[in-house]
């Protein structure tokens, strides 16, 4: 790690290095103009095109991390984003068209770059905690997609054996601590996990994903404060899609600052705003933060400006075969279109094609391959058995086969002692 971490933005800028950006990187590859100009959303929160540190402590900037990715990795990023996209589009279409489909989703389309960019910065044995909207996180961290498809329709062979469903997918063996139906605590147990990992001394780090509303919860403060004070190897990635739930409350009505990242100032740690629609931008920042954490320099708060194409929950305003939810009332279709125009998958595809890593045909083929894979996954899932009713009494404890069916007239002790 270079010393520049401890310098101010201005100093680094003055030195004329450190700000090796996506633009420069692409320029280096002979590609310019690839980044689409960012749309603004009125007077609301702006996405910023370059990763500008908000707090006084900047992240290390003299390495542009994506430069070090291989062609295979850059293509793998695209594959993962496509998997996420088609997984959720498939769920959306099923919700719209299949009577009796018992899955549901908090759709992640729009957020793909956040999940994939961040998870690519992690090793397999690093841990990641999701939130309620975490299909994309699970896939990005390498969860089994078939089992995920089975889980959201509560099949006995789902990731969680049908106990959890869409909001609680966990896959421990790929380092996914799980989604969380309660908004907020993920940062707290994520940072706690980081604390334990440091003690273990194997250089692992932990990462928590959160929505913008995380910034309004009690856990946000205590976790950042403690993680900063104790230099816990932990990265906090906020996917600021600007809205809370299906009421459509805008985050600007819930906090008094333009960028959540500025809150890092209260903890004297780097707070960074990145373009959440650019997988390389996200990767660059998270990778720098992960390196910083691994080096014992403590946590980083990263805010990805992003957007969710669907409604908060479910498929209101969506049409089969079409991406996104329109006419939601709390947001304009124009706003949605402006974000669709910056789609992270289109963008990365362009990068891959323009840099000669994929031909247009190969890019198409990749997409078809993923679609087939997802189609298969859901077919497999549908063929799986449902759980047995009595199994609801199992898995309450590791050390107890099952608990008693206390709703039954002949619950065992009744017989035993009567």
């Amino acid at each position, binding site marked *: 790690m270079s010393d520049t971490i401890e310098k101010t933005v201005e100093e680094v800028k003055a030195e004329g290095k450190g700000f090796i950006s996506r633009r420069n990187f692409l320029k280096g590859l002979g590609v310019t103009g690839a980044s689409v100009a960012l749309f603004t959303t009125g007077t609301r929160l702006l996405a910023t095109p370059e990763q500008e540190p908000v707090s006084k402590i900047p992240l290390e900037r003299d390495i542009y991390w994506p430069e070090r990715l291989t062609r295979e990795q850059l293509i793998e990023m695209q594959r993962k984003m496509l998997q996420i996209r088609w997984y959720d589009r498939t769920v959306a279409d099923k919700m719209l068209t299949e009577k009796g489909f*018992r899955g*549901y989703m908090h759709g992640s389309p729009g957020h793909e770059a956040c999940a994939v960019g961040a998870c690519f910065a992690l090793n397999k044995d690093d841990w990641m905690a999701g939130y309620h909207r975490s299909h994309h996180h699970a896939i990005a961290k390498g969860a089994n997609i078939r089992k995920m498809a089975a889980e959201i329709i*509560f099949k*006995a062979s789902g990731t*969680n054996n*049908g*106990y*959890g*469903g869409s*909001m*609680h997918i966990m896959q421990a063996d790929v380092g996914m601590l799980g989604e*969380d*139906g*309660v*908004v*907020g605590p993920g940062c707290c147990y994520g940072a706690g996990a980081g604390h334990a990992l440091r003690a273990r001394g194997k250089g692992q780090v932990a990462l928590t994903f959160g929505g913008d*509303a995380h910034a*309004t*919860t*009690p856990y946000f403060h205590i976790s950042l404060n403690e993680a900063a004070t104790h230099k816990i190897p932990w990265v906090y990635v906020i996917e600021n899609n600007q809205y*809370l*739930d299906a*009421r459509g*409350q805008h985050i600007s*009505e*819930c906090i008094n600052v333009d960028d959540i990242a500025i809150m890092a100032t209260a903890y004297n740690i780097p707070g960074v705003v990145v373009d959440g629609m650019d997988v390389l931008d996200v990767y660059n920042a998270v990778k720098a933060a992960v390196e910083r954490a691994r080096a014992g320099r403590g946590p980083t708060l990263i805010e990805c400006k992003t957007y969710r194409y669907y409604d908060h929950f479910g498929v209101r305003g969506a049409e089969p075969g079409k991406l996104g939810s329109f006419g939601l009332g709390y947001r304009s279709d124009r706003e949605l279109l402006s974000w669709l125009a910056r789609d992270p998958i289109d963008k990365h595809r362009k990068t891959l094609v323009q840099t000669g890593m994929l031909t247009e045909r190969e890019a198409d083929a990749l997409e078809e391959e993923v679609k087939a894979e997802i189609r298969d996954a859901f077919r497999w899932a549908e063929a799986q058995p*449902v*759980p*047995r*009713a*009595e*199994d*609801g*009494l199992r898995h*309450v404890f590791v050390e107890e086969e099952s*608990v*008693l*069916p*206390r*709703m*039954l*007239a*002949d*619950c065992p002790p*009744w017989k035993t002692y*009567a």
Partner: protein
Amino acid sequence: MSMKGWFYAQMEGIVQALEQLGTDDFIFWYEATTPIATAPGLPTIDLTKKYGEDRVRYSGLDEMWYAGATLGAALVGSIAIDWHDMYMANPYPFEIVSQHAAKLHHMTGGQATIPAVWVIHISGQGPGLAGQHSDYEADSWYAHVPGVRTVIPSTVYDAKGLMITAVKSKDPFVYLNGSAFRALSDDIPDTPYEVPIGKAAVRTRGSDLTIVSSGQGMLAAMEGAQKLQGDGISVETIDLRCLNPMDTETLVKSAKKTGRVLTVDQSKYTLCPGAEVIARIAEFTDGVKFKRIAFPDAPPPGAPEMFNYMKPNGTHVYEAAKALLRK
């Protein structure tokens, strides 16, 4: 009398209670449910319009904040309501309710008054949401806290009446609001009325068997009672309505009459409200036979197959009652 939905009844209760108190000094925090209620042929109730945005405030996602803010508003003398409709966040207001709201009147020797209501939604209703979003435990948590009244309506009539009682009271209330009742409608009075605290409601009168339940447990209890009546069994069904204080007298009198008491809870078995019911009756009368059914001591699973198996229903009640009658 007119037909009103559950929510309309509650909103009407709030407005009428404030009218009776003659005050507009009222603060209401909400999260997911905009306080606008309609009922066919009746005027729309819009709390925000009526009292203004400074009093009726949408407060984002931070349940801990508005649980505490409710206490503060009440401490300076405003009637304050925390409309806590995020059941997965039920433990959040617990600190403020148990350590502050419930203790301050006593700890200040009678000085502090807390005319507040924490309307805490409990769910546990549908399958598919799993552990956190379909839980039902908060009844016993809050009922074990002294210094706060814990009420739990299961009829539209009580939803309104208990709301009026709670809002008019100078004492803090926890008003547990079962999500299963959201779709319920009933013909209830248009004029204000109170449901007295500490008085259980006898929903059916009978002499063979007493069934005691509360909140969403009443759905299974009533279904079971009906089936039993179909078999010619005379069932007395008691709806606690108020968990703390609990109406010992009604319970004991009924138990003395029938000699058999079945408790039904959607809450988790260990220390469910039914445990308190049985303990009170057993303490104060002899020779009664008891049976209790409840949600097992397990989180609610997501898969409908498992969840529906575990949630107490009318058949469970019917069979448990039969077993108890054979005892």
